[in-house]
């Protein structure tokens, strides 16, 4: 009986990278599509996100969607 440490380590590494990666990307998308916080002392209220932020956000969401599609592929192909 020997524990397959390499496989376990690989699972841990991949899980950590994928989870942090997807959550990070998705958060970038959320930040890109939500209103900007009001600056301290500024009279203006929260402002809508700019075009650049929006483009980044859409790209981030698209990558997340691709990851979900790959997940479904893994389940179906198993």
């Amino acid at each position, binding site marked *: *009986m020997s*524990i*397959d440490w390499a*496989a*376990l380590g*690989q*699972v*841990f590494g*991949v*899980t*950590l990278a*994928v*989870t*942090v990666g*997807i*959550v*990070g990307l*998705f*958060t*970038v*998308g*959320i*930040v890109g*599509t*939500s*209103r900007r*916080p009001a600056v301290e002392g500024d009279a203006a209220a*929260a402002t809508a996100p700019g075009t650049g932020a929006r483009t980044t956000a859409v790209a981030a969401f698209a990558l*997340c969607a691709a990851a*979900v599609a790959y*997940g*479904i592929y*893994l*389940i*179906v192909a*198993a």
Partner: protein
Amino acid sequence: MEHITLLIGIVIVTALVFDFTNGFHDTANAMATTISTGALRPKTAVAMSAVLNLVGAFLSVEVAKTISGGIIDESAGIRPEVIFAGLVGAIVWNLVTWLAGLPSSSSHALFGGLIGATVVSVGTGGVHGDAVVMKVLIPAVAAPFVAGLAAMAATRLTYRLTRGRDEADTAKGYRAGQIASAALVSLAHGTNDAQKTMGVITLALITGGVVAPHADPPLWVIASAGLAIALGTYLGGWRIIRTMGKGITDIQPPQGFAAQTSAAATILASSHLGFALSTTQVCSGSVMGSGLGRKGGVVRWSTAGRMVLAWGLTLPAAGAVAAGAAFLTKQGSWGVAAVAILGLGVCGAIWAASRRKPIDHSNVNDGPAAEPVGVVTAALKTVSPPPAGSVTAQATAADAAEASAPAARTKAATATTR
């Protein structure tokens, strides 16, 4: 189907009952945090999970080759009586843990039941001790750490990135992401766990000579197994959902998203890199991790401790019940009948006990009763900052009851200003 003897018929029915308990026991894995953050209304969440479980059951054509994954020596004489006794043990333990509201692994209960029944009817030689350690012990111990650490890191990251943003603005996005992750977990559950029941039924049919060895399961087996798990999922193990979604820690939308994504990633990564981890432990671990990841988040360690205790007891307890059942079934036909009647009686008693304090979709998001402060909780409280914007159980329950998204958004806004 005239070749199906009464005994094999009983085994099939028992296997479907187990499948049903498996369904409502594991709803929490996919949907607990989705329900507690209000991403989906309770009934909608379990309905979605049920449909995905049903779809998952039909998706995979790979039949579970061995029902126990090599833990017991199936060639040593696994007779229908042994399978029956093992299933009874697994069902009884699933119901006991459900009554206590503790998420425990249905697969471990099935393994434990089969081990107990095999030891009594064949002897200890019929059990592979190595496989028990490799397939049950290590995956169960490793799972909460892998999923928990990933969820903790992801929770930290997402809170850092959205710092300064209005919670009401971000909550909707998090909820959408959470639904996607939960759907993946449900689908993976359907393909995995419905397969187990199909394997059990197919094995029973093979031993009865109804289908040829190595044959694919007949369509009615696939359909009935899929329907049983979907029905169980739809009825919802609300007690377990409450523990996972509310009892371990208070979950905010960002945490729910991080926990659910971590669970989905862990399940898929582990099953495809050849080191399968236990789903229940993965999901519980990721919830705990997300609780630790939020600044001021508090994990209720006494609830977590009870849960870990139940994990440890699952295999031996299901095994002990199954061993008793196997002893009775060895006595002949009256023994099988006695086990069936006793099993039904125990199930009825547990159901009756659950009616005293029913938990269903209407009160699933009510918080747990205030618990005495444990040693670990007290120690952690002294070193951690106070919770930032903790949502009361009442507010979140009202939140979950809101039907429309705009209404939920204003609710979230009131929660943050509180």
